[in-house]
């Protein structure tokens, strides 16, 4: 049969690679013959050949002695795919189409195997093939593809580099745990692969960030779905551990990724993952020296770094949609009718099931709240740079007013959501952190709450303490504000009724 013929050809290739170095001229001749003798002439024969080779390689893996060399065929297949990628003429189709064919065939064979009810699916050979493709590409691309002798080919490959990683990421997105749970742990290993993650983080103009965020959000959504109160499986615990370890690695190597994407990360992070929340929001730009947040002499307003607006990769304005006009109009001239429009727009049409600390459902659109609050903070930061800090560090400014009014007029849940997002802005020293410290301190001591002062104070303290209670790290701005509240003569925490009502909290504050 045709398949058997393809198996024969592929087996020849595997044997050849066991005898000669992969850069030997014989290899080139073999590839040439594959093309010239019509094995790969048409795109459908190409697809069939790859399909047959992959199926054979996976079968070989499953039947090999597990203590011996199980990946011989898979390794050879990876090498073949990349050799074809470099040596072909690409007259009939482009490099991009070639890659899409490869990954599509992979997906086909993989999906069939995964869905096979007999339980014989094993993620390892599929992982190995994808790992090998990453390896081959990273060898090829080294020093701007200098090992490729033909200058035209070198140029084409260099132009394709960002696409390669984005294509790879797109297929990884298709392979996510929700779709193929039997591949979950291999998937997590692939998104954090040393020849994928650090490269994608550093592609020019952040060319890989959008797709990488897609993958991390896939992971967060999976965790969110199955982090059920009172019943978390061991497997999900292990997924969580791997996740936090990867985020720690990113925080060390490329903290800017977490800093600039914190908005979308917060939108998708499970609500009970307080330590992971802190890890993401504690990211500090490389080379920034940060003063101790506990220092008695610390004057946030005097820090140079606190004049700088942090970079934002994804502008939240895109998510405000129909509320953008009322929000921006309110920031120009506050009015009650605009406020009502905004507040109505924040209500959901149905309950959101959200497993949080102290709650299980939400009636307010938390993503919209986050988008609006961050938009206000960004605008305040820009205004600070444009005019002066007096315009913005001012309880009469429209920026402060909007946040104040949302908290004042809103339901308890809306108060909570707005305050939670405001406290997320307490990060490393920058203008957003500094402004938010100003806003929160003023809100805490404000007399403008009528009979709701105690409620607002309690929600602010709850939101701060839940982040401080957990194991480190704690974001700099969060530590600053909490320290200032503890030390303040104006604010006497231990005299507040709602503190006295919860002895466990009272004890903690007493100790601190």
């Amino acid at each position, binding site marked *: 049969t045709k398949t058997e013929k393809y198996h024969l050809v592929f087996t020849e290739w595997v044997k050849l*690679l*066991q*005898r*000669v*170095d*992969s850069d030997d001229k014989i290899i080139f001749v073999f590839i040439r013959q594959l093309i010239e003798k019509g094995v790969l002439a048409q795109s459908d024969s190409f697809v069939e050949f790859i399909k047959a080779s992959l199926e054979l390689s996976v079968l070989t893996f499953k039947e090999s002695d597990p203590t011996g*060399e199980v*990946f011989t065929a898979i*390794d*050879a297949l*990876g*090498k073949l795919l990349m050799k074809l990628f470099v040596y072909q003429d690409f007259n009939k189709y482009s490099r991009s189409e070639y890659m899409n064919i490869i990954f599509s065939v992979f997906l086909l064979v993989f999906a069939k195997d*995964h869905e096979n009810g007999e*339980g014989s*699916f*094993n*993620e*390892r050979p599929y*992982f*190995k093939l994808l*790992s*090998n493709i990453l*390896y081959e590409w990273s060898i090829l691309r080294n020093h701007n593809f200098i090992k490729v002798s033909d200058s035209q080919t070198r140029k084409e490959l260099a132009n394709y580099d960002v696409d390669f990683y984005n294509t790879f990421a797109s297929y990884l997105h298709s392979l996510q*745990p929700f779709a*193929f*749970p*039997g*591949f*979950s*742990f*291999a998937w997590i*290993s692939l998104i954090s*692969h*040393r020849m994928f993650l650090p490269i994608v983080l550093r592609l020019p103009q952040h060319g890989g960030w959008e797709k990488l965020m897609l993958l991390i959000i896939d992971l967060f959504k999976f965790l969110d779905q*199955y982090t*059920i109160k009172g019943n978390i*499986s*061991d*497997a999900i615990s*292990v997924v969580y551990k791997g996740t936090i370890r990867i985020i720690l690695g990113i925080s060390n190597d490329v903290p800017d990724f977490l800093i600039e994407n914190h908005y979308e990360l917060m939108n998708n992070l499970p609500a009970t993952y307080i330590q992971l929340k802190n890890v993401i929001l504690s990211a500090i730009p490389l080379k920034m020296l940060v003063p101790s947040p506990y220092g008695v002499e610390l004057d946030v307003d005097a820090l140079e770094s606190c004049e700088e607006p942090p970079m934002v990769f994804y502008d939240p304005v895109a998510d405000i949609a129909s509320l953008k006009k009322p929000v921006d109009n309110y920031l120009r001239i506050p009015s009650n009718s605009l406020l009502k429009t905004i507040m109505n727009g924040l209500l959901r049409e149905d309950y959101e099931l959200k497993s949080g600390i102290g709650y299980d459902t939400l009636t307010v659109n938390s993503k919209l709240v986050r988008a609006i609050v961050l938009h206000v903070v960004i605008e305040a930061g820009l205004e600070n740079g444009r005019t002066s800090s007096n315009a913005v560090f001012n309880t009469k400014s429209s920026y402060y007013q909007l946040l104040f009014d949302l908290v004042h007029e809103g339901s308890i849940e809306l108060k909570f959501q707005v305050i939670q997002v405001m406290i997320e802005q307490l990060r490393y020293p920058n203008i957003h952190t500094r402004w938010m410290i100003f806003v929160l301190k003023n809100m805490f001591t404000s007399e403008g709450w009528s009979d709701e002062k105690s409620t607002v104070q309690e929600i602010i303290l709850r939101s701060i303490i839940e982040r401080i209670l957990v194991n480190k790290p704690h974001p700099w701005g969060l530590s600053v504000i909490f320290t200032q509240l503890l030390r303040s003569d104006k604010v006497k925490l231990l005299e507040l009724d709602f503190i006295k009502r919860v002895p466990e909290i009272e004890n903690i504050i007493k100790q601190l």
Partner: protein
Amino acid sequence: EMPNKMVSQLESSLLNCPDSLDADSPYLYQIPLSLPHPTSIFFPNEP
């Protein structure tokens, strides 16, 4: 809640989780640096 089929697939994935050896560079033929030679039994015999 996770459907039963998904639970067993996820657990199977955990059992088969690739390790650092699986993620390592592929082992392909390379011209050996040196021919085999009988050396002292006291020398390390694993690279």
